[in-house]
């Protein structure tokens, strides 16, 4: 597949006339909004990549008069910090995206679940919210937004755990189905979208889907905000068109000595240098919620893997056995191999365990531990053993 190269884009942080866009959106029918979002090909920007238009369509199809739009601002994936920047700089576009989603689905109420680590942003977010509510009241549209805070639990970024948390319970994911679009927050039809997804949706309505599909590839339309950290001379937030290879990314952001890039955070994939050129960043290659961490040759990939496993062991909600026990055993297992207490072939057993967790865990947390585990163990086996 031919790559599109690396192109910087300014869509998310670009300032727009929110009143004008919302007035236009509120005059559109639910079907018109949904068909424009579908046409744009937008997929969720939180990491899972579910088509946003479909989510809205399913929620809109529900007959219940009470529905919710929930903004997932529980950005906790290691290496991801773009939602904080979006909230900090253009929160009015998040509010706007929520109101447009509300219009599309027939929801009058929205919740933003903000991670506790970002509580310091609240005063300014409320100030902007006050201005926003005043503006849509002037337009003559009925829609309200409330904040709910997280308290330091990574798992609450999982949609159904997030609902549990808002409802006042432990953040333990629910069984699916039913999916949120039929039974979500307070068991009502709910569309839950990432911060960046909502801003992108507002930009699609503002610019039209035809403009948006010009960006990206067939499987990964548009652009994406990347959170770039690790061994790079220019860490920070960059909005890039989707469809570049890891090599092109490294040429721009690497320090000349990049040996691996972790795409998609601790629950994502580790791409080694030999696969940079062939790996596309996007849904056709390695998907990402935006987290891009670069490691140069001075880094021990054992330490990286150990850090991730320690993270998952702490953040597993403990509800289902494959994830709770699996995380602990993977961590203990790599420690044993490193210390020489277990043979190197024990790593193969651990990979099998990670594969079992993928099929047997209840939610995305346990299902994704194997992504980083497998990709690091397979590509940097000698660093794990010696």
């Amino acid at each position, binding site marked *: 597949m031919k790559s599109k190269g690396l192109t910087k884009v300014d869509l998310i942080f670009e300032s727009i006339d929110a009143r004008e866009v919302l007035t236009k959106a509120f005059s559109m029918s639910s079907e018109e909004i949904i068909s424009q979002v579908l046409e744009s090909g937008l997929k969720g920007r939180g990491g899972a990549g579910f088509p946003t238009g479909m989510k809205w369509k399913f929620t809109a199809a529900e007959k219940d008069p009470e529905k919710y739009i929930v903004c997932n601002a529980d*950005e*906790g*994936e*290691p*290496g*991801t*910090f773009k939602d*904080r920047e979006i909230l900090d700089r253009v929160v009015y576009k998040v509010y706007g995206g929520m109101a447009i989603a509300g219009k599309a689905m027939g929801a009058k109420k929205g919740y933003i679940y903000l*991670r*506790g*680590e*970002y*509580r*310091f942003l609240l005063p300014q977010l409320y100030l902007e919210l006050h201005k926003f509510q005043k503006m849509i009241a002037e337009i003559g549209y009925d829609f309200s937004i409330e904040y*709910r*805070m*997280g*308290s*330091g*639990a*990574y798992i609450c970024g999982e949609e159904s755990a997030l609902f549990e*948390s*808002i*409802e*006042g*319970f*432990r*953040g*333990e994911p629910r069984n699916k189905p039913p999916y949120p679009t039929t039974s979500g927050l307070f068991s009502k039809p709910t569309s839950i979208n990432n911060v960046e997804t909502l801003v992108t949706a507002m930009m699609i309505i503002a610019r039209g889907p035809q403009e948006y599909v010009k960006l990206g590839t067939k499987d990964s339309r548009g652009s994406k905000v990347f*959170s*770039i*950290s*690790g*061994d790079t001379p220019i*860490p*920070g*937030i960059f909005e890039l068109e989707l469809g570049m290879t890891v090599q092109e990314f490294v040429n721009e952001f690497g320090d000349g000595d990049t040996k691996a890039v*972790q795409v998609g955070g*601790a629950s994502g994939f580790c791409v080694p240098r030999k696969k940079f050129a062939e790996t596309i960043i996007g849904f056709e290659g390695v998907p990402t919620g935006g987290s891009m*961490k670069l490691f140069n040759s001075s*880094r021990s990939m054992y*330490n*990286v893997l150990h*850090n*991730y496993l320690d*993270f998952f062991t*702490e*953040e597993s*909600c403990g509800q289902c056995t494959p994830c709770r026990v699996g995380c602990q055993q993977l961590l203990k297992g790599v420690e044993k191999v490193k210390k020489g207490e277990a043979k190197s072939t024990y790593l193969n057993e651990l990979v099998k365990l990670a594969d079992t967790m993928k099929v047997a865990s209840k939610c995305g947390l346990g299902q994704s531990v194997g992504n980083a585990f497998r990709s690091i163990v397979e590509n940097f086996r000698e660093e794990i053993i010696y």
Partner: protein
Amino acid sequence: MYQTGNMVKELAEKYGRKRESLMPILQDIVKKHNYLTDEAMVEVATELDISAAEVYGTASFYTFLDTEERGKNVIRVCKTITCSMKGKNNIISTLEEILKIKVGQTTPDKMFTLLETNCIGWCHKAPAMLINDMPYTDLTPETVIDVIKGYMRK
């Protein structure tokens, strides 16, 4: 130990006596007192008419809803990969040295508690830490000392 006085009752009135008010109520108590005492949790349970086990069960799930005594200023140093790569250990040892406590402990004057935490979303400005709600980034042993001295003067 602290006395809640009328606080729990007032919070129950402010948020409403329903299950979904539990998190905001617990969060507000922690914001003011930094941790939850058994007494406070029992009081919340009484106000919301749920069992104390439900309150403790929920609180103990969340890292920031501490059920052990915490100091006036809770320091949480990020230990996730980028901060770890960029010198988190130096930050911890500097903090341990000036506060004369280890990770997990509280100073005898109850001014500071030192903890580690998972990714707080400042990887591009690592190493980073939170003191209560406030993030501090691009830390060096020198800047950490300045920050802590600032809190000591408060």
